[in-house]
């Protein structure tokens, strides 16, 4: 009996100690100063999202609109010789990695929401997305309202799952680990529709014949660059950089580069001045 008592109390102590780690202070140091000193900004970018951040098998580098934005913003903040280091994140891992300081900023198809703003700071929006649906071409689903009673596939950690509950309260939602798996599940008819931001869905529709984006957008999901709380100087620098890019036309150039070839998507709608 005595042995068991010690075992239980030992486990309890470990739990208490570990749960203490949860209240980690976000780092007191200025990320911007450190970045200037090392001439490097570390970015969290997607690796599984076509058009925004997709790992190119040939060289192992992530490529996409977000990645190019990160590189341009780095040059604007640190000067032409500034280096941008890319770390691949998922919808699920991006917040923890930012919180514990593994990345300085996250530019990974992350929409600005009030819940997220409680624990992170966001730059101004750099891309105006909205949630939509990807369905097989033969599907009878015309809009989000048709989803009641159907199974909808989403991705863990993305905001879109919560939105579905609001638009179609009787839809069944299953969350998968990433977009590649989600598309495979849709192909295997594990769900009737895949939901997330239209920008991502257009990328998926380009790659997967027999599927199309339907129903227009039913939410507004402005993407922002996320930084840790208390890094106001970095947030300001990023906002400044995005503004400069819009004025100089770099922004529109990147929009054309990545969204110019998407069928059924007028990339000029995204132009900013």
């Amino acid at each position, binding site marked *: 009996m005595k042995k068991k008592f010690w075992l239980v109390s030992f486990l309890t102590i470990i739990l208490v100690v570990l*749960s203490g780690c949860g209240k980690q202070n976000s780092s007191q140091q200025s990320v911007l100063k450190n970045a200037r000193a090392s001439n490097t900004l570390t970015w969290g970018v997607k690796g599984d999202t076509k058009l925004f951040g997709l790992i190119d098998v040939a060289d192992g580098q992530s490529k996409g609109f977000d990645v190019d934005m990160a590189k341009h913003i780095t040059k604007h903040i640190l000067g032409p010789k500034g280096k941008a280091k890319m770390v691949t994140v998922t919808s699920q891992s991006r*917040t923890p990695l930012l919180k514990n300081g593994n990345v300085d900023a996250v530019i990974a198809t992350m929409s600005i929401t009030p819940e997220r703003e409680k624990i992170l700071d966001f730059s101004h929006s750099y891309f105006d997305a909205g949630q939509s649906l990807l369905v097989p071409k033969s599907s009878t689903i015309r809009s989000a309202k048709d989803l009641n009673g159907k199974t909808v596939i989403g991705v863990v950690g993305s905001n879109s799952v919560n939105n579905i509950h609001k638009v179609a309260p009787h839809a069944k939602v299953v*969350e*998968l*680990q990433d977009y590649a798996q989600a598309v495979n599940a849709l192909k295997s008819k*594990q769900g009737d529709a895949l939901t997330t931001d239209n920008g991502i869905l257009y990328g998926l529709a380009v790659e997967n014949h027999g599927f199309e984006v339907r129903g227009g957008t039913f939410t507004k999901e402005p993407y922002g660059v996320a930084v840790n709380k208390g890094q106001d100087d970095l947030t300001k620098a990023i906002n400044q950089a995005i503004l400069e890019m819009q004025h100089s036309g770099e922004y529109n150039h990147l929009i054309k580069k990545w969204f110019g070839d998407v069928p059924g998507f007028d990339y000029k709608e995204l132009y900013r001045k």
Partner: protein
Amino acid sequence: MINIITHYSHQLLSGFGWTLLSSVLALFFSLIIGSLFAIMEILPNKTARFVGRAYVELFRNIPLLVITMFFYLIIPLYLVKINGFTAGTIGLTLYTSAFIAETIRSGIQSVDTGQMEGARSVGMTYWQAMRYIILPQAFKIVIPPLGNQFVNLVKNSSVLAFVAGFDLMYQANSIASTTFDTINSYLVIGVLYLIITMPLSYYMRYLEKKIA
């Protein structure tokens, strides 16, 4: 931590339920399937031995996640629709049954060959000798390693999270991504897993003492 338990008790309980259900089902079926293939592996018949051996090597040497994904993504394309929970439980059953087969086979073979010879020489048939002499002794030997397999099975059930099987791990991923309180979300389900595995461990220990 308390926050998560009170706010998400519904999700956590449902996750606990699905994990428990999947574990119980997989434990039951993998024990039956495992025993069958263990016996096949030691039969005098060559074909039966080959089939048993092939089954064990196939499912023991493929990662659990791959087996599960096969049932979740590939079978529905060609055969029949399988939901995440079922696909995960089938994967878990097949994977664990291969290990259980090996455990039981080694238990049977560790019983001294003299036992079988003795039983046969007093007029028992092969199956009688198996049933009354070899298996009871083998059972005693395999209890500790079998307990290991059972505990592993419960923990491996977290594979359900990857195919949307609504288990504890799935709920923790979901809670962590809503609250952003990663550490506490996973700590809570760690404790819930302990609630299943600890009694199982202690029961196997008790069984070991009682029989030995």
